[in-house]
């Protein structure tokens, strides 16, 4: 007998006559797969629990007690197991199971979208009966019924594998679809009039093994054999891996790619269905310049008129000739690929010589937080017995796949989540501790939590609650996920909190960004004082001076200062590279006045956003579906972005526009392809080392760059004083919704209608004190500013706090922000009905 405490790592099993060594306890169907033996299956999905619903994976297994038929998804391997997946009996059973599954299946393959990529079709061909013996009437249901805005359900085709219902319940915690009725009339359905309102509904279409679930955007659009596909990356902060599928130069759908490190094959609906935006009729397809009637370019003209590239670029270069570098500024860049970011930085900092370059739009964490903290990957976070502290907003709204990973970690991987978010979130019900500090107080709460020096009450949280949470920080590895949870709170309290957590041994961080490729932008130097490869202006000059002729002499202004300078008329040329400060910058009027008072405003964008509308020159850019390049996610993971379709009209990749402008100014950036950028950048950047282009090309997990410490984190010297909220006021939280008035959402037909109107959300207790009806319009004031907005009861919001989501139709909460405040207190006047 071996010592029972000794862990057996590997067992040997015989699969189809071959002895193989597999991990002890592995699920048999996986073990067979890794041994190269494919077992047919419908219900089994490796990212969800096993249920043994479909019986398709039955094989003959002998564990020493004689052979028997076992579903291989419900069985763990054990030493000496003998498996026969090819026996006569196995084949007979597979044939029988398929015959049963097909009893009620309508076999309407010729008109079914799934035909050609349908596991039921494929496996029936491979393992099933050639003919049916079933002559009776099949069961009938109304064909397809919408279960939400984007997904249709055809219950006749359904084989009841429980994949979609399991996904809804287990993976994302939205159990809004269920098995209804029983026996022969079992069906998947929602509650009447209660749609499957999940942010992740597109995934059930992807995992459905038959044609029962179809996405509105893809229905009857193409046949699988007409599709071409390419593996790419969705340029969101997490860099979710995707497969882009197109036909005739038109993208028809995005599918999640199962990358172990990042998204596990899942995508949020916002990302999955957003491809429609890039094919929208509102996409810019030629340059625009300010002009008047008869399409004539004219400075000070009333509108934007179509132009040629030559005409538009000449206005740009005229504004840049002999300009004082201090009077040129660049905002934005988070939309771009790493390569395009490098090209624009080279144009700004290497050719024009200005350091007024910032990818932040006033809603990101500072660069030293994003680059300076010891960083952890998502998979490092999700190890058993870890404690993850969330100093974030609702991840379900903003970082869909990270939400899914952390939810799984808490439910199935033995990770404890200590949530310190402004409101209850999608993770609250799986978190070990869920606390909601008052905005502005997170630094003080974190200090008490870390030190265990616990006051009676801090930031709206009792000492007892803190003490309970403190326990979870003992004897386990602590990881802190942090983002700019609300633009109603300054970054100071967040930096205080991070400073406190740094007192813990080996505490590591995952700072999140708001915009797609902000991490790449920082690594490519799109921030004042930075050069590519996490070099600073002073340390990096020597590295770049031979190829970047006009490096800036001094550190440039940050976003707010750039906008201030522009508003004061101190900027001659302002570049907006995929940036829309009027919609996104916290101070809307400053952004507007900056764009109006800057000499020439050049926008490089895909759509006419409010800021683009005010620009003087608009250069149409190619989207991520139309360019080659790479993306850097919040972990520092670089994954490829690959071109699948051609850009509309004359729009060009961003790097090409930068290169063209430089060329017209008499400088050659030496960039003819994205690879040129990569070769130049990697030859200079110690961080990116010697990563060749193909290095990460075929690895679904991409390549992780780690270079902590080159840009040091600047801890806070003194913690912000606690500021209690008085009993007449409420502390403001400005959150973000998955579906808002953002350009991409609004340009996607599938997503447009999902954005709600702006509402002030307060909890039942505070609501009752107001003595008004739900939905009443009230006046909300903060100092001398006010907005009027309807009130909604939302018990996720803690007492004495009020939540408004940013960028929705109606009241704009940015109007309430005060210059220089660390947190915003508002008053609600129920008597003033605007």
């Amino acid at each position, binding site marked *: 007998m071996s010592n029972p405490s000794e862990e057996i790592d590997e067992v040997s099993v015989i699969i189809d006559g071959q002895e193989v060594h597999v991990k002890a306890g592995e699920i048999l169907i996986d073990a067979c797969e890794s041994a190269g033996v494919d077992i047919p299956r419908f219900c089994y999905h490796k990212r969800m629990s096993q249920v043994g619903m479909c019986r398709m994976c039955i094989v003959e297994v002998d564990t020493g007690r004689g052979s028997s038929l076992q579903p291989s998804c419900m069985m763990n391997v054990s030493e000496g197991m003998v498996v026969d997946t090819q026996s006569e009996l196995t084949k007979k059973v597979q044939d029988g199971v398929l015959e049963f599954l097909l009893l009620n299946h309508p076999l309407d393959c010729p008109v079914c979208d799934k035909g050609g990529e349908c596991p039921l079709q494929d496996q029936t061909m491979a393992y099933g009966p050639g003919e049916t013996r079933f002559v009776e009437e099949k069961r009938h249901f109304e064909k397809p019924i919408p279960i939400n805005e984007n997904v249709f359900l055809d219950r006749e085709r359904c084989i009841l594998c429980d994949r979609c219902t399991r996904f809804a319940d287990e993976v994302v915690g939205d*159990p*809004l679809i*269920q098995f209804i*009725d029983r026996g022969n009339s079992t069906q998947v*359905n929602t*509650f*009447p*009039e209660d749609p499957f309102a999940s942010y992740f509904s597109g995934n059930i279409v992807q995992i459905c093994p038959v044609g029962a679930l179809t996405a509105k955007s893809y229905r009857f659009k193409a046949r699988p054999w007409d599709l071409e596909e390419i593996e790419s990356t969705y340029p969101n902060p997490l860099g979710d891996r995707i497969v882009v599928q197109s036909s005739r130069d038109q993208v028809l759908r995005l599918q999640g790619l199962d990358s172990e490190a990042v998204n596990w094959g899942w995508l949020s609906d916002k990302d999955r269905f957003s491809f429609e935006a890039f094919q929208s009729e509102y996409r810019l397809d030629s340059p625009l310049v300010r002009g008047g009637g008869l399409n004539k370019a004219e400075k000070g003209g009333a509108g934007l008129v179509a132009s040629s590239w030559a005409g538009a670029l000449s206005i740009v270069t005229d504004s840049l000739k002999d300009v004082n570098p201090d009077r040129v500024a660049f905002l934005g860049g988070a939309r771009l690929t790493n390569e395009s970011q490098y090209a624009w930085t080279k144009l700004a900092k290497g050719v024009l010589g200005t350091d007024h370059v910032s990818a932040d739009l006033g809603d990101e964490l500072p660069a030293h937080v994003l680059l300076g903290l010891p960083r952890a990957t998502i998979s490092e976070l999700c190890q058993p017995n870890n404690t993850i502290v969330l100093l974030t907003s609702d991840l379900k709204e903003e970082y869909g796949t990270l939400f899914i990973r952390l939810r799984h970690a808490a439910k199935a991987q033995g990770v404890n989540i200590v949530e310190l978010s402004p409101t209850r979130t999608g993770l609250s019900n799986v978190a070990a501790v869920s606390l909601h500090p008052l905005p502005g107080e997170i630094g003080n709460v974190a200090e008490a939590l870390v030190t265990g020096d616990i006051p009676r009450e801090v930031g709206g949280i009792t000492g007892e609650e803190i003490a309970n949470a403190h326990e979870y920080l003992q004897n386990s590895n602590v990881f802190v996920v942090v983002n700019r949870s609300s633009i109603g709170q300054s970054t100071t309290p967040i930096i205080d909190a991070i400073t406190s957590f740094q007192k813990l041994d080996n505490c590591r961080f995952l700072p999140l960004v708001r915009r797609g490729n902000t991490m790449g932008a920082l690594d490519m130097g799109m921030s004042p004082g930075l050069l590519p490869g996490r070099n600073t202006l002073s340390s990096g000059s020597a590295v770049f001076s031979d190829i970047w002729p006009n490096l800036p002499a001094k550190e440039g202004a940050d976003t707010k200062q750039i906008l201030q300078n522009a508003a004061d008329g101190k900027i001659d040329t302002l570049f907006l590279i995929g940036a829309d400060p009027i919609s996104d910058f916290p101070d809307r009027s400053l952004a507007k006045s900056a764009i109006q008072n800057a000499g020439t405003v050049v926008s490089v964008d895909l759509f006419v956003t409010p800021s683009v509308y005010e620009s003087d020159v608009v250069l149409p850019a190619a989207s991520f579906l139309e360019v080659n390049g790479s993306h850097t996610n919040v972990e520092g993971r670089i994954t490829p972005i690959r071109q699948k379709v051609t850009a509309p009209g004359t729009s060009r990749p961003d790097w090409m526009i930068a290169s063209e402008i430089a060329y017209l100014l008499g400088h050659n950036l030496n960039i003819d392809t994205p690879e040129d950028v990569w070769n130049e950048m990697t030859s200079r950047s110690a961080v990116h080392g010697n990563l060749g282009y193909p290095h990460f090309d075929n690895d679904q997990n991409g390549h992780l760059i780690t270079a902590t410490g080159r840009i040091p984190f600047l801890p806070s010297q003194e913690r912000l004083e606690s500021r209690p909220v008085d009993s007449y006021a409420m502390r403001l939280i400005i959150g973000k919704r998955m579906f808002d008035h953002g350009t991409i959402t609004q340009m996607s037909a599938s997503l447009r209608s999902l954005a709600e109107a702006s509402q002030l959300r307060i909890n039942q207790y505070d609501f009752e004190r107001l003595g008004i009806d739900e939905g009443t319009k009230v006046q909300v004031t903060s100092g001398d500013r006010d907005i009027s907005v309807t009130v909604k009861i939302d018990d996720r919001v803690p007492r004495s706090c009020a939540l408004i989501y940013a960028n929705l139709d109606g009241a704009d909460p940015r109007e309430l922000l005060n210059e220089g405040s660390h947190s915003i207190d508002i008053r609600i006047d129920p008597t003033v009905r605007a």
Partner: protein
Amino acid sequence: MSRLNEENLRIARQIISAYPKKKSALIPLLHLAQEQNGLVTNEAMTHIAELVDVTPAEVLGTCSFYEMFKRHPVGEYQINICHGISCHLLGAEDVLEHAESSLGVKEGEITQDGKFSFEGVECIAACTEAPCLQVNYRYINKVNADEFDQLIDDLRNETKTEIPKHGTLANTRQKIPANKAAGPAQVEESSRPIWLKRNKEE
């Protein structure tokens, strides 16, 4: 509106408090809703979902699994006439036919006064008493056509008071003394079931 009324809401809260997890009260609450309205309405399911903290779809999934929860109206007296093998051999079809003609409705329909509905059911496990039937799940044994008519008359004249209206499980409500109830607190003290921990459902 057929959410739980005030009195039943009070009872519902009491029922919920007897379980360590709210969700466990789901089926008892469905019975309560059925007792109130004679059927389980969508509004009641939504109400129950709110009370036990699950989605309405989950309530529907459970409710629709059980034959005895009716989501469509039935008579005040739901008569289940057995046509299992023993009853069939001893004349169940005659009883069914008689029911249809004497009540003037077809199987699954409700009489105009809303009093009766009937259906043929599979074996109800009283083969020694065949042919048998149930009125609101109370057994009536060895029935023939005359006895069926008598039964209907008694029910119509409300002389057969031992059979409550459809939806009522029992004439007396179960009372669990505080010291016998599991309650939410005691689970913590006893050894915790593994599945609670695994599902992180608390």
